[in-house]
């Protein structure tokens, strides 16, 4: 990639939008995942009594829905990112490629 092409791509509004939106979304979702996971670990470490709460019947403790919930949450986050990327980011990328190729 030569310098002229670099400058051209950098100046494209679609490129700037792509970088800004994707970077923003990627960090937001990453932080969401980290906060949920390390929040869970911290809760386990500092308030283990919380996990002895029984939420259903006599044996289903709160840890089970929370744990499965984190797995489902992780999957939903990836689904959200892919959906967003498939529609918005790919469209912007296609426009950028059209401009320079």
């Amino acid at each position, binding site marked *: *990639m030569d310098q002229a092409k*670099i400058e051209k*791509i*950098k100046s494209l509004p679609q*490129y700037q939008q*792509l*970088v800004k939106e*994707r970077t923003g*979304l*990627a*960090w937001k*979702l*990453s932080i969401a*995942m*980290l906060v949920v*996971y*390390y929040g*869970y*670990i*911290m809760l*386990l*470490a*500092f308030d*283990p009594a919380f*996990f*002895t709460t029984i939420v*259903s*019947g*006599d*044996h*289903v*403790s709160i*840890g*089970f829905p929370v*744990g*499965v919930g*984190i*797995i*489902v949450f*992780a*999957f939903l*986050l*990836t*689904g959200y*990112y*892919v959906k967003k*990327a*498939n529609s918005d980011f*790919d469209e912007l*990328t296609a426009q*950028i*490629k059209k401009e*320079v*190729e």
Partner: protein
Amino acid sequence: MTMMKKALFGLLALAFAPLAIASGIDVEAPAAKETNWAAISMFVVFVGLTLYITYWAAQRTKSAKDFYAAGGGITGLQNGLAIAGDYMSAASFLGITGMVYLKGYDGLIFAIGFLVGWPIILFLMSERLRNLGKYTFADVAAYRFQQTPIRVLAAFGGVAVVILYLIAQMVGAGKLIELLFGLDFNYAVVMVGILIIAYVSFGGMLATTWVQIIKAVLLLSGATFIAIAVMYQMGFSFETLFKTAVENRGGNMDILYSGGFVSDPINAISLGIALMFGTAGLPHILMRFFTVPDAKEARKSVFYATGFIGYFYILAFIIGFGAVALIVGAEYFDGPKLIGGNNMAAIHLSSVVGGDWFLGFISAVAFATILAVVSGLTLAGASALSHDIYANVVNKNATEAQETKVAKIATLVIGGLAILFGIGFKDQNIAFVVALAFTIAASANFPVLIMSMFWSKMTTRGAVIGGWLGLISAVVMVILGPVVWTQILGMGDAIVPYKFPALFTVVIAFVGIWFFSITDKSARAKEDLDGFEAQFIRSQTGIGAEGASEH
């Protein structure tokens, strides 16, 4: 092709010779139960199918790109299954179900730690890797830097992780096969070694990918069946499942709660970092992103992989509790312990809910799992040697044919090492190897890779010094830790009281990269900095990225 055919059949004959011998021996050695014919016949079907796939793939594996990256023609769904296949090793199937069986809820906490790295890999790495890379993660890590020092570092980190992982898998494989099939440990290890050399050297990434896919489908179906069978017997009620499990533990409710697995927050965070960043630094996983045609398929593969892996861990959790609830009866126990140890919980449970044939099926799946994971590892190790060391350091003018030839020799070497280490470490305490593999991946491979993509000011010097500091500190701190220092060397209290010291070693690597980059005033540093913009644009847009090969 006739030569290829002959070679394959020769290998097939070699691979089965020990089976025949062992089933003969086993009749006289009822200690490992009677020979499990159901397991053996299903295993034979699996091996036959995978060898046929290898033959099919061999005809389509001509160029270097075919060998390393299956020509870049794998779809997102296929790659997602293959990634899940790479990740759902026998260790995680048997290990996590065994851990749930032993400790209940704590097993779920551990499984979650293995999963949460995946979304991060998707958000920050998968598309960039695909846009920048070619065959190995070192292609990305070394993109704008001086090739030799970064390639050597990346290959060293990559091969170290592969070898450690291989030791764990091979020793586990030998013991598992000994127990399930009544086959001698050494024969089992040699057989695994020969089969994977055949898959990888003839079929390259295409065969490896399909072996992973088949194994992932078998494992997911088998685990689904066990979990449904468990829930059926429990009237599809978690209350009944947990209640029965607690009753079988003499009314002790502890398995429903966290049993102090995370009593020490530093240990817990350090483990979380090792699992999360370590996953993002495993060479055999990273390599999978180069098998898809573009960034879109790369991101889809992580979505599918996260779904399959998450689903699998939920099943593993049900299976673990199902084992506590349903494995009753003296035939499964040796005194108070499960026959074969806690890690056999899923295997015994499959016999309880599905009888002998299903036990055979699950045993064969467990073996298939080992074969698939070991071939992925072998391919990654061989690629580091042939692509990073040979073609980018030793002989920079190597032709594609030369490089592919070296890759096949490297496959033989890594496969041979796997056999030797499997036998050599048979009676050793290898509990540290997975911790060490993840710690090295998190502290050497991951920091250099992620910083090369995100930090414009990283220089060759910073990457090399920081990466080696991470690698060396990982090795030193694991040696000074509780498993090696206290248990293996018997030197008393551990100097580093953490099994996974990643919290410290990752910080050391990042600080090293930062400090030795910002203080780097060399001419090379300027070149490194100047290259960032072009790299960044390619990583974002995929302009100039490797395409899929056409055929």
